[in-house]
């Protein structure tokens, strides 16, 4: 008796198991348009994070092209919008869809995103390339259920051609395969008072600064090419000078960091060795906005295009100024003039200080997001939830919530001050310039 009962149970659980497998494998009949865009943003962030030797500079550039590809893939399906061909630096032509032919625009996006990701991140692992491929196949299979064969083929062909053309254009911007030479060992700059020094408390083993010529790269928006130099408080190590005061503020803040401020500092640390870097963090928040608001396909795609190009252009200008001013970090000034034993809460990244890359990108991303969504949107940022706590600094990764989009920018900038690696002016100028750069993306003629 007992024996049979046991057998029955086993049989039933086996059946459940089989059913379960079938259920897992079964594809839904449809997928919301915005979700196609969002799932490609997820994949973009995974590749950004999981590709070795990725730098915040190269990552930001890729986000620009990957975001733009989303937009160009679907723009022809929305009559009131137009392509950015002729509006972006050096982008004179892109393939066009056949007139009066049917397309599945999510399917075009699906193919184009897969193509651009695998091309621009050619250096990523085979495992990651398989992941890109699997996502494409899965989304294709879902969309195929409601798409005829000819439309599907046409959509895929257009997606491929478009992504290849965008990739081809990307190769001439100065940042193509930039990961091969993150730290140019031939770059030399004679030191001067207040100049950047290789960090003693460093994030990177390189004694050479990251991508010294990144500022010469071609920006997406032509207006972002020749922006005027921002003002920089001139070097004066005397106690009481404005310059000294900038560092004194960093020093005093570090002495009295609250646990919340420490959490904020590591939350935005966005170390490119283990995360998707600051640009990716902002792309992540753009994705959170898309999932929260569930907008149309064109609006979703436009979100990623604007944020991607905004952070890319922000970094090009940021790097231009970083190497123009070649300014020191608090870790160089404070031990020399204020307190020899001082050390920042967070280690120094391997490049000059002014202006802050985090602030300029966050200022830029927030500005373009505000152009598309209500600034008063409440957002929860779970980008690093689940990461192992920071043992060295005895601090957890705690989700952050924001009452408005602009608050993201402010807290990002503040986090660098709490981390002790940026002065208030680095952040202030970063935010201001980020807004200006983003505005040059916003004012492109997106609509006819």
């Amino acid at each position, binding site marked *: 008796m007992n024996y049979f009962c046991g057998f029955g149970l086993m049989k039933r659980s086996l059946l459940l198991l089989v059913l379960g497998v079938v259920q897992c494998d079964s594809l839904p009949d449809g997928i919301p348009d915005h979700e196609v865009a969002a799932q490609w943003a997820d994949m973009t962030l995974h590749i950004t994070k999981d590709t070795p*030797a990725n730098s915040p500079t190269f990552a930001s550039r890729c986000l620009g092209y990957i975001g733009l590809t989303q937009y160009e893939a679907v723009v022809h399906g929305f009559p009131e919008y137009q392509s950015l061909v002729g509006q972006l630096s050096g982008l004179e032509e892109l393939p066009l869809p056949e007139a009066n032919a049917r397309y599945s625009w999510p399917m075009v996006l699906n193919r184009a995103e897969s193509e651009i990701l695998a091309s621009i991140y050619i*250096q990523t692992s085979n495992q990651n390339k398989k992941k890109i491929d699997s996502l494409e196949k899965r989304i294709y299979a879902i969309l195929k259920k409601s798409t005829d064969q000819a439309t599907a083929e046409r959509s895929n062909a257009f997606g491929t051609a478009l992504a290849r053309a965008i990739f081809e254009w990307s190769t001439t911007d100065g940042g193509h395969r930039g990961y091969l030479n993150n730290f140019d060992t031939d770059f030399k700059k004679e030191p001067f008072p207040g100049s950047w020094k*290789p960090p003693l408390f460093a994030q990177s083993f390189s*004694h050479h600064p990251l991508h010294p010529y990144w500022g010469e790269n071609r920006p997406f928006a032509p207006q972002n090419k020749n922006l005027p130099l921002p003002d920089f408080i001139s070097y004066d190590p005397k106690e009481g000078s404005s310059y000294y005061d900038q560092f004194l503020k960093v020093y005093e803040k570090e002495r009295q960091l609250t646990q919340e401020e420490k959490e904020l500092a590591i939350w935005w640390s966005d170390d490119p060795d283990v995360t998707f870097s600051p640009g990716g963090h902002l792309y992540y928040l753009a994705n959170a906005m898309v999932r929260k608001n569930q907008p149309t396909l064109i609006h979703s795609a436009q979100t990623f295009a604007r944020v991607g190009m905004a952070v890319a252009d922000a970094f090009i200008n940021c790097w231009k100024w970083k190497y123009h001013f070649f300014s020191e970090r608090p870790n160089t000034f404070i031990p020399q003039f204020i307190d020899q*034993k001082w050390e920042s809460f967070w280690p120094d990244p391997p490049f000059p200080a002014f202006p802050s890359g985090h602030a300029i990108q966050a200022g830029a991303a927030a500005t373009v997001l505000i152009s598309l969504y209500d600034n008063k949107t409440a957002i929860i940022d779970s980008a690093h939830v689940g990461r192992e706590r920071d043992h060295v600094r005895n601090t957890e990764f705690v989700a952050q919530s924001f009452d408005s989009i602009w608050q993201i920018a402010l807290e990002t900038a503040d986090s660098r001050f709490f981390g002790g690696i940026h002065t208030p002016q680095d952040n202030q100028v970063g935010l201001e310039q980020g807004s200006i750069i983003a505005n040059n993306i916003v004012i492109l003629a997106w609509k006819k």
Partner: protein
Amino acid sequence: MEKIGKLVTKIFKNNFPLTFLIAWLLSCGALLAQGFTDISKEAGLEHYFEVYEGMFGGGVAVLDFNNDGFEDLYLTGGMQPDQLLLNQGDGSFEDQLEKAGMLKVLDFVTQGVAAADFNRDGFKDLFITTITLKNKKQKIPRAQNLIFINQGDGTFVEESVAFGLDQTSSFSTGVAVGDVNRDGYPDVYVGNYFTDYDGGLKEISDATIVNAGKTAKGYLYINRKGKKLVESYEDYGLNHRGFSFGGVFTDFDNDHDMDLIVNNDFGYKAKPSYLLENQYPKKGFKYVEKSQGMDLRINAMGAATADVDGDGWLDYFITNIRFNRMMVRDSIAPTPFVDQANSYGLELFTISWGAVFADFDLDGDEDLFVSNGDLNPNCVPMHNFYFEKQGSKFEEKSLNVGLRDYGLGRGAAIFDLENDGDMDLLLINQKAVMQYGTETVSRLYRNENKTGNYLKVKLHGTQSTPSGFGARIETFVQGHRQTREIDGGNSSHLSHNSTIAHFGLGEHTQVDSLKITWPGGFQQKFIEVPVNQLLEVKEPNYSHPSNFPWKTLIIISIIVVAILKFRASFMVKS
């Protein structure tokens, strides 16, 4: 005598400026008698280490390669040629790299070096680490390491292939030697900075290049009868990675086997430093850095070993960027290691690489030399440290003793240049990549000490390694203990000190007792040892403690006998 004393006092009382002058002159005289002289030029030393693309190096190993009783040197040069410097006995050197048949080394960008008699033929051989080839630009800098076997006739033969070193292309830093399995053949631990490649690099794609900057595992080479070095990382339970400057073999827990400290750069960001406890006679190591307080999350560049508090347990000075660490272990318990750099007066801001303890002033305690230098190409001059032990503290006196060099200091090693009983010093300096305020070349410092007695002890291992790596030597003078451990290399950043133990004894004219503890624990004692001599000690024949589990066997036999007896009595009863 008394009269003269009174006279001097009278002069002092009546003429303060003169008193001052005399005191000053006297102190100058005392300083001259204690300090160091840079004799690089007169000794014929012309060397600097040139970095490959802003990377690391280099080091110096002390060895007497022709067994003439004078210690010779091997200096790595990086992009510059290495040098095999024969000590000519008159305080000068001659580079015999070419004469010794070692020109193959010129094809490589070298890093660290250690000397050991790998094949136990009575002559010290050389193990040299490399990071890449010199004349062939490689997209990813990697190369095999090198072993040169001493032929006993002043020449070396490169036998890397025969020893099995050509199987991996690595970016190697420090090399240390120690007998891990106590078979008498020196085993090797090599630290790697960036990830390595088995079987070389055949196809290079963008993916290969972006992976090249990852942390690396090290190599544990077990020496098979002096014929082969077999990589046995996994076999010995090792699985760690890091941006490593290599390890130091040492017996931290006084159980007479070779444990291993592994120094890692960027410990706060990548992998912290490790402490590996040898499980001998069981095969393998156990990671104990956390429980021992040695999981340092710093830029660990090198380690120097000494018993700074005289408790018979070894302590470790770990070099770092900014502030060095003095990891001291308490004899009572013993407790985990605690950083006491501050209380020892060793906490001075700088960037340190090599470090070596020695009783430079022969007053009966160990002083500490630390070689400092900025990250190259940053090139802000910073001077070396000479920490003189004074009571329970150290005092930085590089200026007073003539060791305040501002070059880009890296590896350093101690040895007795002219066999006069005091420790001289070879310091490796890097050539500055950018403009530099002062000359930065390697230096040979002659110790000018004229006071204080000494004792040098040279071990000849028979069951242990020929140099007695890891053997512990203790002297006792009027109850005062001094401890030395025979250095297996990489103790002073990519360098290898003399394996002749050196003790300063001050005014004492004899060592009351001298204790040698060979690896495995066999002890030899000598009493009333005369000073100012080189004592050579051969390891006696003693029964080798076997791996056979006698204890377990005895316990099992007792149980079996008991059972048999019990059964017998039971059977009788029934």
